[in-house]
């Protein structure tokens, strides 16, 4: 029971990370496409400005909880995904410092350099997250000793790549909606147009990903065993359709919220299909690390549950408050502030 609760919490933390950091990553990916001049580029940095750091902590929390609640799964997952994980961390390093460094030296080529780094690190981080999670859904070649029998290229299989493209598109849509909320004038118009443009692509990708998932993974076994779970892919689809409806009505926050529902449901769709597997072995079913054979002791799980039940709502409360404080769109006047990026 404790293990199952923790498995769900584990999915919640990843879902929160994708919802929150997802829009930063999307806005960063759109930077060279949507910003036409220096002011607009700076606005695009500043729409994520007060948020990206707090958002990234959800990754640390998700990693920490994997470690605390499922140490064995953590050990195998992160050592098997050694190369992609370190690549992800390096891209996140560059993403973060590009926020901070870009505006610190008044030189055009310095800015061009950091803009390029910002773009490439955001796009790479999005794709890597998708590739990693698709491979986790599908199972990776690890043996019972946790030794990984493959390389980076074996992760770049068709399904893994599909996951990469899927996540990238998901974050671009999410980021475009955030940019639409947080900007004005031309930039906002372009952001809304981008969301409209990317939406049908996302819909096709979602359907394709569901079909590919049925072909390449065992995720649907859980769904057939427990049909009530089909609510998850339906919620994902519903979220995505709501994005379009809300966009049409010009209700941008609602559109972003629908996109969040979509992302959260996609995460849960995959993770529910994996249950109780956390690190599924494609070599040998017996080598699969599960929420049960890889969990911490009941004492640790109980203590951590107490901590999570108290702290996560508190964190959500103060993070919501900061979103409220910084909810106003970023305008050209805001760039005058000497604290702006």
């Amino acid at each position: 029971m404790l293990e199952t609760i923790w498995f769900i919490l584990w999915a919640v933390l990843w879902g929160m990370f994708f919802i929150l950091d997802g829009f930063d990553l999307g806005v960063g990916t759109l930077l060279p496409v949507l910003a036409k001049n220096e002011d607009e580029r700076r606005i695009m940095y500043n729409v994520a400005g007060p948020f990206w750091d707090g958002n990234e902590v959800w990754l640390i929390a998700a990693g920490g909880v994997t470690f605390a609640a499922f140490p064995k799964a953590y050990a195998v997952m992160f050592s098997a995904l050694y190369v992609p994980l370190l690549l992800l961390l390096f891209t996140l390093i560059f993403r973060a410092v590009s926020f901070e460094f870009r505006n610190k030296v008044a030189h055009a080529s310095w800015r061009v350099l950091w803009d390029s780094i910002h773009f490439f690190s955001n796009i790479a981080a999005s794709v890597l997250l998708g590739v990693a999670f698709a491979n986790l859904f599908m199972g990776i070649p690890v043996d019972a000793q946790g030794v990984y029998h493959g390389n980076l290229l074996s992760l770049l299989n068709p399904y893994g790549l599909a996951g990469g493209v899927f996540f990238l598109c998901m974050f671009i849509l999410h980021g475009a909606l955030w940019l639409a909320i947080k900007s004005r004038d031309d930039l906002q118009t372009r952001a809304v147009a981008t969301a409209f443009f990317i939406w049908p692509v996302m819909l096709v990708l979602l359907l394709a990903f569901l079909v590919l998932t049925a072909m390449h993974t065992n995720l649907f076994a859980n769904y057939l065993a427990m049909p009530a779970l089909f609510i998850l892919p339906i919620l994902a689809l519903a979220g995505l359709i709501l994005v379009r409806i809300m966009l049409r009505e010009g209700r941008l926050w609602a559109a972003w919220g629908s996109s969040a529902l979509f992302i959260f449901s996609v995460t849960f769709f995959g993770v529910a299909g994996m249950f109780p597997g956390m690190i599924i072995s494609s070599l040998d079913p017996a080598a699969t690390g599960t929420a049960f054979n890889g969990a911490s002791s009941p004492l640790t799980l109980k203590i951590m549950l107490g901590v999570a039940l108290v702290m996560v709502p508190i964190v959500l409360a103060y993070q919501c408050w900061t979103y409220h404080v910084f909810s106003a769109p970023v305008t050209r006047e805001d760039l005058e502030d000497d604290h702006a990026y």
Partner: protein
Amino acid sequence: MDAVLLSRLQFAVAVFFHFIFVPLTLGLSLVLAWMETRYVLSGDEAWKKQVKFWGKLFIINFTLGVVTGITLEFQFGTNWSRYSAYVGDIFGSLLAIEATVAFFLESTFLAVWHFGWNRVGKKLHLASIWLVAIAGNISALWIILANGFMQHPVGYAVNATAGRAELTSFFDVLTNGYAWGMYAHTVLGAWALGGFFVLGVSAWHLLRRSHTEFFRRSFRMVTPWTLVLTLLLALAGDIQGKNVAHYQPAKLAALESHWETGRNVPFYLLALPDEEGEGNMVEALGIPGLLSWISYGDAAAEVKGLKDIPKNDRPPVLPTFLSFRAMVALGGLFVLLTLWAAFQLRKDTPCPLLLKAMVWNIPLPYIALMLGWAVAEIGRQPWIVYGLMRTSDAVSPVPAPTVAMSLGAFIAIYSLLGILDIYLLRKYAIQGPEAREV
């Protein structure tokens, strides 16, 4: 080189680089919180100007601290998977609590503070920097409780069926005296480093008579603070030394290069270990009974020598010994420097020689903290968890060439970041309080 050594090097690179940024965050956040408190209480714009100037340096430093911290949490999984699986039940929960209790708070309120000057009220803004400072220091506590478990494991039992260590008493883990001693020594060192950073940058400007009024204020503000901290730091170091003597006799023997078990052991001002010959090449200027006294508070106490510790349980002696000596020497220097500064407080401007010394001193507290960690971590070898698990049993089954590649990437990326950090900190420190971001 094998995967163990490569992984150790990689962790060392990652953790040392991270620790360039952490102590300044811990120390400077408190200085900023105090400055802003003065501003809010007095309404004096001069204090606000202080907060803005030092805050700019703080933010550059903070970002790098954040990004280099993330890689650490994941490296336990990537490079030390057997360790993670073996002690994750205890160690993992401490890291997870760090993120949920402290790091969210620190990152979120840093943004409120940084971007919120015109968006939240004065008092809320002040509360934000205090939350950043407190959360940062709480974050350090959880990390050091985790490290404290590696140094002196408590509150666990080995479950032979599961093949791992399991938590038996969370209370024991939280009240681990060894960890609290480390914490006190580390945060006091970090706070002192923050003080020396402010002293050094202020001194640079005072020497050039630029913004004299401004930098005299910051110099005078942190002088007493840094003096008190350096003295407390020495005291905490002494307490921690006794912890080491009590719980980690092998580390104590290595850091003192002490070979023969005996009572009434002298402390040699000059010594140089010879690991092959199991003794010291040089041993001179001994102060009778001092080593026994500083280790156990009793000049007659018995101190175990390295010869009575099996060879495969001994840490590398030379690096532990040299790091420890250099750290202690620097600690002494810091006390003298701040005493000197304190005696000059009554003067309008401190004498140029002191100012020059303060500028040159800027890197030294960093070095001292690094040396302290070198003593703690190299001195713990060959154990990853003292007496429980060997470092060589802890490494991931990742091929050595892969680790060599990632180590190369770490070195390249971190060198680049280090250069950029120093360049930007220097640039903004030199520009002084009038500069605007471009």
